[in-house]
């Protein structure tokens, strides 16, 4: 076990310990123990930084350290069966660990302010302690997922995150809407998890091409099997890797809220804002993407990347359209998250896994910044979330405004900021794939570029409506003031991390050629390190060729759409040269209806699928159980016995049970007897006598008289 492995094991352990401390003694500690969680995650951050630095010391794309042990072993001599779990540290997980611990530390810090009221007192007593307990548990699970070297512990952490998400969305538990949202989130992701679990079962148990079942969940074994072509067999006429890959992708669809299971994420904004930042923007939803990045070779061998790309593209475009009409500041960010996750999934589908992973990281940082900034705005506005009631806030809360503005520039794809670099790579890949390579898939680049424009448009709408213009609610406006130190420090740090130079080593992203890299020795470190030699070439050599050609036109096009989006947004919401209402009136009413109803997904799932199909079916089962099986069949049989009760029933119940067993065994409880057997045993002396006489007659006749 190397140092890095030991450190990696410690990383999820710190928050887990903090969780237990918080659960049991949290509310008795000073400051409700928020420092326990914060300290634990900070220790994890230190450990993760150590691993991160060690990654730079190696600076080797092939760097990987693994360690595993047998968790449980059910084997007998004839049938081997064991489950091995362990830790895998490579470049991808190091970066991810660093990002997650960093975000998490900052969000913990932010929460120490956000979860207190304006007098600095914890909200709602001990709930403050539980909040930090859940955050710690969540962080622990997320970190456990990252360091997993196998699908099994990955799945376990995955479900644990689902639990934390459930608990945290429903954190304001007096609200019915919060309870509904948490249930919806858990159940929707669970639908995806079922697919993931079935995929895992297939992966583990199905006999491969060599006739042997894989019998392992470890990535190393899976990669080895893929490379030796063991997945070249069919399941029900389909390529095995395709079936398994798509089932595993179901997990991503649920967790990363992709089409058609995207319904839960906007509702998940019922949770406290730091939770939205940590779980529903930066980390947990990105775990879905992380999963398909890990399983990329399987998807590739199965040839299902195009499907993945389409799902991502759909999600990106349609979520962006929804974001335009939202008025709740958090809902806008939620749809933007959906849209950006769509980007990541699309990038995986395009084979540009490096770009996808990079976008995952950059998005996590700037989206965390955006969410926390919005949290600061909400906090400053005394829990007002509607942007129509805001306006002109830049003077009141300048630091928050600055941070949010930087993050908005990043998400809109403005050069010099991280979003530009990662999004650019994705768009270039989409351009190469859909325009140069396979023109029948033109939808993917189209959706990609449209989304980029729309993103810039709605994000700047948010900025203009919130921070510029005249205040709409003077009461709240007057009271608004800059948030405290522990709340704006995280914003500043994350805004600083939204600079592109940190990811490319170049201020311009290499736009001006090789010479302008300012971080020596770290030229384009991200892509270099994440590129995995064992992953083959996505969509083939031609695609790589096209990728090269696509670089310049793709970048220019993305710059153009982003600037159009920003300009348009300025004209409509900043300068108000174009009326927003007239703009809206350009679209036919069915478009508005579709957007207002979220494309009827919620309506279909809840009103049709659950309320019209599923619940009636379940009620039918219950009634069937009660009326047919229970009362019909069983009591029917009992009624037959009832008919002969005068002779046989009394004989058995009164004489046998009552006389022999009860008086024999439970003589100590005569009155209890009365109440139990009242229906059978009436205490009537004459009836007993009658039974005795009847029995005598029966016996005599039976004996042949």
């Amino acid at each position, binding site marked *: 076990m190397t140092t890095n492995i030991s450190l990696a094991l410690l990383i999820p352990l710190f928050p887990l310990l903090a969780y237990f401390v918080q659960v049991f003694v949290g509310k008795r500690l000073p400051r409700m123990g928020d420092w326990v969680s914060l300290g634990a995650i900070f220790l994890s951050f230190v450990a993760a930084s150590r691993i991160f630095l060690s990654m730079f010391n190696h600076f080797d794309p092939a760097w990987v350290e693994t360690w595993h042990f047998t968790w449980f072993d059910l084997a007998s001599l004839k049938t081997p069966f064991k489950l091995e779990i362990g830790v895998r540290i490579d470049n991808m997980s190091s970066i991810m660990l660093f990002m997650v611990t960093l975000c998490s530390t900052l969000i913990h810090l932010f929460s120490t302010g956000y979860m207190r009221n304006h007098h600095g007192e914890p909200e709602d007593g001990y709930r403050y302690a539980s909040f930090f307990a859940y955050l710690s548990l969540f962080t622990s699970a997320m970190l456990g997922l990252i360091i997993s070297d196998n699908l099994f512990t990955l799945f376990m952490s995955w479900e644990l995150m689902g639990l934390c998400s459930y608990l945290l969305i429903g954190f304001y538990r007096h609200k019915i809407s919060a309870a509904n949202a948490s249930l919806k989130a858990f159940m929707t992701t669970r639908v995806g998890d079922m697919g993931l679990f079935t995929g895992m079962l297939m992966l583990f148990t199905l006999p491969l091409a060599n006739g042997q079942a894989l019998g392992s969940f470890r990535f190393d074994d899976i990669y080895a099997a893929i490379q030796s072509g063991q997945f070249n067999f069919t399941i029900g006429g389909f390529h095995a890797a395709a079936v398994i890959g798509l089932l595993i992708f179901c997990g991503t669809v649920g967790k990363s809220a992709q089409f058609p299971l995207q319904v839960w994420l906007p509702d998940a904004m019922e949770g406290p804002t730091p939770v939205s930042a940590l779980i529903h923007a930066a980390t947990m939803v990105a775990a879905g993407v992380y999963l398909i990045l890990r399983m990329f070779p399987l998807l590739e061998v199965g040839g299902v990347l195009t499907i993945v790309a389409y799902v991502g593209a759909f999600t990106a475009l349609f979520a962006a359209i929804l974001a335009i009409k939202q008025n709740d500041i958090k809902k806008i960010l939620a749809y933007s998250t959906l849209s950006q996750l769509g980007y990541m999934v699309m990038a995986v589908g395009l084979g540009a896994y490096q770009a996808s992973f990079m976008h995952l990281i950059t998005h996590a940082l700037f989206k965390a910044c955006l969410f926390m900034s919005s949290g600061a705005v909400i906090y400053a506005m005394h829990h007002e979330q509607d942007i129509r009631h805001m306006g002109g806030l830049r003077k009141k809360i300048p630091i928050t405004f600055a941070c949010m503005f930087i993050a908005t520039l990043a998400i809109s794809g403005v050069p010099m900021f991280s979003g530009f670099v990662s999004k650019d790579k994705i768009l270039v890949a989409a351009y190469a794939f859909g325009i140069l390579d396979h023109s029948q898939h033109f939808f993917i680049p189209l959706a990609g570029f449209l989304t980029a424009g729309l993103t810039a448009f709605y994000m700047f709408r948010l900025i203009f409506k919130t921070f510029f213009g005249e205040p709409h609610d003077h009461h709240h406006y007057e009271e608004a003031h800059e948030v405290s130190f522990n709340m704006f420090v995280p914003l500043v740090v994350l805004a600083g991390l939204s600079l592109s130079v940190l990811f490319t080593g170049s201020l311009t992203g290499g736009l001006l050629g090789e010479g302008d890299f300012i971080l020596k020795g770290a030229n384009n470190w991200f892509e270099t390190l994440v590129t995995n030699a064992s992953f083959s070439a996505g969509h083939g050599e031609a695609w790589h060729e096209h990728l090269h050609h696509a670089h310049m036109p793709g970048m220019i096009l993305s710059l153009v759409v982003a600037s159009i989006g920003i300009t348009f947004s300025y004209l409509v919401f900043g300068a108000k040269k174009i009326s927003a209402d007239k703009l809206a009136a350009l679209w036919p009413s069915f478009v508005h209806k579709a957007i207002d109803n979220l494309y009827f997904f919620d309506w279909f799932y809840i009103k049709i699928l659950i309320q019209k199909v599923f619940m009636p079916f379940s*009620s039918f089962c219950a009634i069937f159980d009660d009326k047919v099986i229970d009362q019909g069949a069983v009591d029917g049989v009992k009624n037959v016995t009832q008919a002969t009760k005068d002779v046989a029933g009394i004989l058995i119940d009164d004489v046998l049970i009552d006389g022999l067993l009860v008086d024999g065994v*439970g003589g100590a*409880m005569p*009155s209890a007897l009365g109440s*139990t057997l009242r229906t059978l045993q009436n205490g009537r002396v004459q009836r007993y006598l009658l039974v005795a006489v009847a029995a005598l007659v029966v016996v005599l006749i039976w004996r042949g008289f």
Partner: protein
Amino acid sequence: MNCVLSWITFFPLLGILAILFVPKGKDDIVKWISVGVTLVPLLLAIKLTTLFNYSVGGFQFVEKALWIPSLNVEFHMGIDGMSFLMVLLATLLSFLCIFASWNIKKQVKGYFSMFLLLHVGMLGVFCALDFFLFYVFWEVMLLPMYFLVGIWGGERKEYAAIKFFLYTLFGSVLMLVGLLALYFYSTGPNGLSPATFDLAQLSKINWSQYTLNFFGMTLPFDKAVWVLLFMGFAVKVPIVPFHTWLPWAHVQAPTAVSVILAGVLLKMGIYGFLRINYWLLPQATQYFATTLAVMGVINIVYGALCAMAQKDLKKLVAYSSVSHMGYCLLGMAVFTAAGMQGAILQMFNHGLSAAMMFMLVGILYDRLHHRAIVTTDGKLGFGGIAQKSPIITAAWMVAVFSSLGLPGLNGFISEAMVFLGAFPVYKTLTSVAALGILLTAAYLLWMVQRVFLGPYVALHKDESGHYHPAGEIPPIRWNEWVVLIPLAVLCLWIGLFPQPLINIFKVSSNMITETLR
């Protein structure tokens, strides 16, 4: 440690004797006596974990004596890994249930005597190696159960008790027929002489060589007997068409009895399958394997669907038991190492989580005097409990998430094992069963949402049956802590480190699997 199994099984009888001499009104003495006499078997069982030889699949701590010479019935007891696990579960739950029944007010002496008698029956079933002895214990258990439900139960206790009694009697009678058939055929050609009830000897006979004439039809002997025994155990499991006694018995039974019912009695059905059907009639078992798997899947899905529509909290949990026992059936129908061990572990795990859930239902019932998620007039019976009693809610969460298979808690391990074992054999069926995971989460979380979340609208039911808003909910009492903490700790422990528990039954489970493969 001579006769340790007899001590474990019969020690509570001393308690019954002692309780009989306790003067009236000294209820606390009765309770502490019960604690004492159930603690001793528990400690003995725990002590056995150090003496048990984990690498041997056969029976250990065997006791053998001739009991009824004229029928060649033996007093033959012994445990292998599987029964040892069940002994641990039963002794643990019996001990905890004494605390769960701490606030029994009516006929305290009678109640605890019955409870201790129940203990004798349960442990006897798990230890018996003679079919006759097995049957005797099986029936011994029936009687106290009948009274515990019928006397200390809820509003319709008589109906529930009679239903339980008739169902189980129906099963037992068929089992008795099977038992006698095996006994009388054991002297047949190249069989044994004299006829025997000894399971080990019966298992050596090749039963498929015999045929039965039944109203002119010639039936293969082993399959016919398999079906007879199956009916006996299926009622106990319960397998779906024979399950309707369960919701009634659970709803009407007092808390501790529900705990034992779900925690131990249901397992006896599965245990019976594995010990009797699988061991004695392996060929018939193979023949019926697919049927068993299909029934398991029906149990899982149907139980979950029924649970979804329940308006009574305890009924919901009862149907969830039906659903969870389906995993056991599916796991044991496939004859793979993972499936079989998953089924056995699932028995234990369900014993813990269902026990916890029933305990918690009882805790709510004690405080609010009703169990209606939705009352008869359509209002929410509970709601927002989390705000008033966070501790009860937290305990519920542990039980619920253990039950719905959250990783890190025990249910996940066994369900994953069952699925891993079952998938290579029955792909479609297992995929359908995976729906159960979804449905389980759906009904449990929906229940959690209605009962614990949202605004506080909990109702209290008074003596006259009217509901009115509840005030404060009293905190958890010490005896309830005593029950909940060990269960919660075990749930977590098995979820994280299952191997020590698996080691107990691994070898014997694999022996069963390999004879059937």
